[in-house]
């Protein structure tokens, strides 16, 4: 137990006691948005025995609590990467050019749901969904249009794609080859994180085991062919959006990461060959210090497990590099302009937490896809933080704060308890099959909802400070002709492709899946023969089957 010095005790019994008697505090208990209790005051006693070099170290050195690079934002600012995609490839290509002209430094592709689910735009399942919440990509031809006039050697591209990630990666590589780019120079990320799909976002296709196999295939293939490509973005974002607390986000994401490492090692890959290309993706929510502590704890835990548990020797394998997105869930449909302020605060937390890249949400996202006007404000928010506030001048400025260090320690400890629990269940795949993380998140989401409805947690404009009049916001509508245009192009591609080559590539893909070979070369061949995403996925379903979710409420 922490020993209280005479000074603190004295203060509590005299100054504090006298003050509280006259003016009681606003609440009996102060908690974070995750429900974690926060003390009135943090002092040196909360970090008693704190060992600087063990807990923090220097930037760019183990355990990387202060940041993964020696100079952090003094050397290079974070990548400003706005997630975007809608309609057909032509429309999204235009938006990309707009963003690049406005100073954005990397692309981030949002695919429409049929692509995410491995379904072609003309499937009955796609009705009403084409181009709605992302760009429609059915074949390599769509991908060629998407990146038309954009030099893939010069930009980095992040693709939010999971179950069919290997297919979209293959399409990107095929476009890069057509542009004449050197594959050793192209850089970007595929999300490729199926575990958080089973846990939270729920856009899966195949069962866990073949899905994990496909992911390890991409690790292996990328480490040999695309050395600068991040073969996975292990994501807490969706886990948090589904209702997890900050500690749950931290724990489940890192345990997911560990699961991938274990499966790749099991395949016989050298940990130091693939681990440097693992990247992460976190949420930045409203509770400012809790978020900053979460990012710092994440780096420390990852460095520790990679070095000590998985015996990685290359310091690059120990570094947790991450992308951050501000919290979509935290935004309100009521008084939407207030969202600009929420996003700014969340973005600041991500920067103070040492993020490598950042997406700032647009204020109108609770209503529809963002308009160009709203996207520009979101991007400007990052530019203001970077260039006007001065926070990028020094590294990890909150280190040494009694509160922040104590919170970082506490979150690390609580996350490790979850990780040990999942270890005991036999790992993350086993835990998912038992419904463990899903239930934990569902319960946390319901608790939060009750806290808002009881007024215990205030959401400005929703349960307090409510106004009657509407703030009109202009909304992006997806043109009704998108579906028709996309299906027309898809049918034309099916007509004009070389039938023999197409048939052969799918046959070979099926055989490779049956023989458990690395599928990347076969998928690459299939996309180059203009096989559609639906055709490739259906071929694999014949071998792997489909996942069925355990349903509970």
């Amino acid at each position, binding site marked *: 137990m922490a020993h209280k010095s005479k000074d603190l005790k004295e203060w509590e019994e005299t100054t504090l006691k006298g003050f509280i008697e006259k003016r009681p505090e606003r609440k009996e208990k102060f908690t974070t948005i995750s429900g974690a209790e926060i003390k009135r005051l943090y002092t040196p006693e909360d970090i008693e025995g704190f060992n600087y070099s063990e807990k923090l170290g220097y930037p760019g050195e183990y355990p990387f609590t202060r940041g993964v690079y020696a100079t952090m934002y003094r050397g290079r600012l974070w990548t400003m990467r706005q997630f975007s995609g809608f309609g057909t490839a032509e429309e999204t290509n235009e938006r990309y050019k707009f963003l690049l002209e406005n100073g954005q430094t990397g692309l981030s592709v949002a695919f429409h*749901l*049929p692509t*995410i*689910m491995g*379904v072609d735009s003309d499937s*009955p*399942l*796609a*009705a*009403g*969904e084409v181009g*709605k*919440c992302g760009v429609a990509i059915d074949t390599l031809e769509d991908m060629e249009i998407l990146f038309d006039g954009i030099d893939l050697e010069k930009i980095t591209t992040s693709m939010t794609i999971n179950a069919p990630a290997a297919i979209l990666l293959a399409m990107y590589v095929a476009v890069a080859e057509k542009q004449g780019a050197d594959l050793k120079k192209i850089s970007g990320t595929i999300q490729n994180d199926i575990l958080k*799909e089973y846990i939270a*976002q*729920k*856009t*899966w296709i195949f069962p866990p085991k073949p899905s994990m196999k496909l992911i390890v295939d991409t690790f292996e293939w990328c480490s040999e062919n695309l050395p600068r490509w991040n073969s996975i973005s292990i994501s807490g974002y969706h886990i948090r*959006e*589904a*209702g997890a607390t900050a500690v749950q986000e931290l724990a489940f994401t890192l345990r997911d990461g560990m699961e991938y490492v274990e499966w790749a090692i099991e395949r016989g890959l050298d940990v130091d060959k693939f681990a440097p290309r693992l990247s992460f993706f976190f949420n930045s929510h409203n509770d400012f210090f809790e978020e900053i502590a979460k990012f710092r704890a994440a780096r420390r835990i990852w460095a520790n497990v990679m070095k000590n548990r998985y015996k990685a020797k290359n310091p690059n394998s120990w570094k947790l590099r991450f992308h951050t997105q501000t919290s979509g*869930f935290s935004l*309100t*449909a*009521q008084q939407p302009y207030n969202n600009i302020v929420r996003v700014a605060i969340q973005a600041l937390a991500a920067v103070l937490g040492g993020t490598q890249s950042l997406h700032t949400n647009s204020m109108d*996202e*609770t*209503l*529809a*896809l963002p308009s160009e006007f709203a996207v520009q404000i979101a991007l400007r928010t990052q530019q203001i933080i970077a260039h006007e506030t001065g926070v990028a001048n020094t590294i990890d400025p909150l280190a040494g704060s009694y509160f922040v260090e104590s919170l970082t320690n506490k979150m690390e400890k609580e996350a490790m308890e979850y990780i040990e629990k999942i270890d005991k269940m036999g790992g993350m795949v086993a835990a998912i099959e038992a419904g463990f993380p899903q239930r934990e998140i*569902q319960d946390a*989401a*319901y608790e939060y*909802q009750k806290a*808002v*409805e009881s007024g215990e947690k205030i*959401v400005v404009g*929703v*349960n307090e400070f409510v106004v009657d009049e*509407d703030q009109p916001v202009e*909304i992006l509508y*997806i043109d009704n002709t998108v579906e028709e245009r996309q299906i027309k192009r898809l049918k034309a591609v099916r007509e004009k492709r070389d039938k023999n080559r197409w048939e052969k590539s799918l046959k070979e893909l099926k055989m490779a899946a049956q023989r458990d070979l690395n599928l990347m070369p076969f998928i690459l061949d299939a996309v180059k023969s203009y096989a559609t995403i639906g055709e490739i996925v259906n071929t694999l379903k014949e071998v792997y089957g489909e996942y069925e*979710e355990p*349903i509970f*409420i």
Partner: protein
Amino acid sequence: MERKIRVLIGKPGLDGHDRGAKVIARALRDAGMEVIYTGLRQTPEQIVNTALQEDVDAIGLSILSGAHMHLFPEVVKLAREKGLDDVIIFGGGIIPKQDVPKLKEAGVAEIFLPGTPTEDVVKFLKKNVKRK
């Protein structure tokens, strides 16, 4: 004893965002209703068939992908074709306000936008469900 209100919570469309659907399902259950949840990615046909089999009083639809203008009216149409005339059909999700009148015209009884207290949904059902 009075029959409990029976509600089917359905997720049409391809998106997997089930936080809202599950929070609503639990809140309705805690309010004393019998709740059936369809699971993800159900076609309008599947949802209406489940509604028939389970003899529900109301169908709640949740969608966050932007396909509501296609899928909500489709569920209403199929439900009425199958004779589910008294079943209340309501929905929620990322739905622009401008779309709400059109959805109501298509027969959706109510649309609950983000930020709605679950209690409002409970009150709405208690008021509108016609007891059999």
